């Protein structure tokens, strides 16, 4: 196929001289990207990078399914290009992001709206807003409307009744049935990517740690892998093992919290309160290693800042064992209760086909039967030695599948951690001297607890970040939630929302 030849394949190390990325004209770029995405690959990142001549390079990073390479391609655009969303619906938010950040018009984009509500990053190119406008408020935009006498619109948020992040949800309802849901975020936009440009400096690490607070270890690991590949260091097996354990502990804590929250949403109290406590216990294990419940400070460029010595490992395994015993009881109690299953099954259903079309990642995708997992596709050395090779267990794509997939992954991670804790790994904890190579692009992928985290960095002549791009799994999955709600009861929205449990700040950055 012609399209395939236009792309550049990255195999072992995911970094490349920026100049070596094939630069195609707009039509070839479009053809290659569409062909690859139609041929079972998914978007890793799809973003703009400002060039010296004030034009923008659009860089597409595509991850073919079940292969061990990544495809990369770029094209230079000044004002507009033909949108790929029509052919590839999963690109829809990415193209909106490009339009908003760089003032580029994706022609024939079916639903072109701002997503984070900020001014364009490029001088004299503003697509959505008048550059003189002083204040841009989130969600001040048109929404999809269903017309009809018995249709009513329900607007929820950004202020919610619970302690959750801000987001605005517009439901078009017919009685209790939802015809359409549109999600408008952007309230948490802090400009992390822009603040990272010019780095790495002292603040970079902290910006990454708070990109999505509940995925601290996932994002910091991804960031550190970028630094390491840009400065050509290999981390020791010891550091790799600590990172893997921390990553799985984060997954355990969050999956446990989610299962508890699902139980709370259907009013099933025993599991809700047990999981709430156990999530705290699991977070405390991370705190036991590094002193912070959310794993801040543990992963550092070049390795890790905290060791798991023999005594710590022994204590960790014992505490994990106790937690797992309680957790097993709490989850089995929930999964064996008919009234809970009546709520979970057939609620918020997504077909595998739809999930592929929307480009879902992580737990949500695996619950639809899509076998996507970075830990399997691009494992680290430790993950190769102790592989995650189980296929997804559910195919139904409903709330039950997302709950059960989480429980399945909890068991998998428990096993993985206890295996790792029994072993001793050697090597230096951290390599503190590193310097980034200039004019290179590096990308890294990590399977965070929500799904695939992708970071891309491009360095300038001085070895500083010219551009840093973060793609949180939530960015792929929010549309999935909106589609899952179609023809559901509006009263089931909180349950569906919790079963995806997406990050608002990871999306807004």
């Amino acid at each position, binding site marked *: 196929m012609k399209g395939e030849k236009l792309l550049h394949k990255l195999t072992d190390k995911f970094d490349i001289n920026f100049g070596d990325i094939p630069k195609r004209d707009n039509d070839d770029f479009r053809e290659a990207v569409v062909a690859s995405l139609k041929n079972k690959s998914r978007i890793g990142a799809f973003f703009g990078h400002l060039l010296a001549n004030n034009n923008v390079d659009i860089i597409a990073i595509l991850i073919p399914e079940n292969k061990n390479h990544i495809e990369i391609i770029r094209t230079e655009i000044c004002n507009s290009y033909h949108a790929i969303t029509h052919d590839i619906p999963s690109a829809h938010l990415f193209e909106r992001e490009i339009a908003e950040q760089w003032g580029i018009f994706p022609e024939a984009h079916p639903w072109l709206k701002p997503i984070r509500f900020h001014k364009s990053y490029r001088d004299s190119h503003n697509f959505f807003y008048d550059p003189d406008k002083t204040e841009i408020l989130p969600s001040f935009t048109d929404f999809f409307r269903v017309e009809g006498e018995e249709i*009513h*619109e*329900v*607007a*929820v948020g950004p202020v*919610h*009744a*619970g302690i959750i992040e801000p987001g605005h949800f517009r439901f078009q309802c017919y009685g*209790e049935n939802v015809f359409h849901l549109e999600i408008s975020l952007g309230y948490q936009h802090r400009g992390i990517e822009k603040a990272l440009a010019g780095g790495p400096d002292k603040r970079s690490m902290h910006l990454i740690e708070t990109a999505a607070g509940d995925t601290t270890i996932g994002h910091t690991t991804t960031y550190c892998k970028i630094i390491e590949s840009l400065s050509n260091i290999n981390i020791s097996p010891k550091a790799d093992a600590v990172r893997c354990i921390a990553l799985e502990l984060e997954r355990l804590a969050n999956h446990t919290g989610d299962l508890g929250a699902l*139980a709370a*949403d*259907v*009013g*099933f*109290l*025993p599991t*809700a*309160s*047990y999981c709430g406590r156990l999530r705290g216990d699991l977070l405390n294990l991370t705190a036991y290693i590094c002193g912070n419940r959310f794993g801040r400070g543990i992963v550092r460029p070049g390795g890790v800042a905290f060791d798991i010595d023999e005594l710590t490992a022994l204590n960790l395994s014992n505490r994990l064992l106790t937690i797992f015993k309680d957790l097993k009881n709490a989850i089995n109690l929930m999964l064996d*209760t008919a*009234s*809970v299953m*009546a*709520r979970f099954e057939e*609620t918020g259903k997504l077909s595998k086909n739809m999930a592929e079309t929307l480009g879902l990642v992580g737990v949500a995708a695996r619950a639809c039967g899509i076998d996507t997992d970075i830990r399997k596709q691009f494992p680290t050395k430790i993950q190769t030695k102790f592989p995650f090779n189980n296929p997804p267990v559910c195919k139904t794509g409903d709330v039950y599948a997302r709950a059960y997939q989480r429980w399945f992954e909890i068991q998998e991670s428990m096993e993985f951690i206890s295996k790792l804790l029994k072993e001793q790994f050697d090597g230096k904890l951290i390599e503190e001297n590193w310097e980034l190579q200039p004019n290179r692009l590096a990308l890294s992928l990590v399977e965070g607890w929500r799904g695939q985290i992708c970071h891309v960095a491009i360095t300038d002549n001085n070895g500083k970040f010219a551009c840093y791009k973060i793609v949180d799994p939530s960015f792929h999955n929010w549309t999935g939630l909106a589609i899952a709600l179609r023809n559901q*009861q*509006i*009263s*089931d*929205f*909180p*349950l569906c929302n919790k079963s995806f449990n997406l990050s608002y700040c990871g999306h807004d950055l």
Partner: protein
Amino acid sequence: MSVQIFKLFSIFFPLILSPLLFGVINKTKAFFAGRKGMSVLQPYYDIFKLIQKENIYSQTTSSIFKISPVIGLICVYMALFIMPFAGIPAIFSFKGDFILLAYLFGLSRFFTVVAALDTGSSFEGMGASREVTFSAITESVFFLSLIALILITKEYSLSGISPYSSEKHFSIILPVMLLVSVAIFLISLAENSRIPVDDPNTHLELTMIHEVMILDYSSADLAVIQYLSSIKMWIFFSIIANILLPHTFYVSLTNIFYFFIIIFSLAVLTGIIESSIARLRMLKVPQFIIGAACLSLIAVILAFK
């Protein structure tokens, strides 16, 4: 003469003790969740705390919003006057007083719904529509249950329809009594917004029924609403207690003792139900209430025999 004074019990005890029901429910739920739980007196502290707070009204609301809690409270107060207490007849009793009871609740609900609509919030509108839909069915179940009792006792007032005064055979009285008690207990779960119909603890505005209608209330108004809903629960439980206990028409300490036992056991039972099953999907709620209707229908058929 003494009975006349003791009739005041039917007002005095609910006014003092009804918030304790919520305390007992919460304690039971805490026990099943493996928690220590809040004090059984917490509902009293909450009411006391709320009364001290400043009242805040949404600018879109009118006077209807302000008077609604008071009208609700008056309605349940008035209902207490026609409720018998542990076999002691009510202060007022007349033929068909149960219809007054149903429509006192109806009036209170009407004002809650109108006040919810008054806020102009789309959630409260949804809550109001759910409340009205479900209560239209529960009301008929309530009447159906009382019809069964009327058929076996040939009495037409709440103070008289004790199954024990029936002349029918025991084999008919007992099943009617039990079926009606269960049916009324089930609709009391719906009427008092408990699991499996509604979840009083949820903070998710899209899934709530009763709680969503009172989202805009604060301070003393909210205290009044919490207080009146506890009295409402007391009334429902005491209907069941009055069905299960013989009407003595005099003051019997054993009877009063059993009366309290039944009411607080029902609170514990509510807590157990809330701890052991999940909430129903909203679509299934009418089926749940119709299940209760079937029980009372069987009771009516039996009573005809």
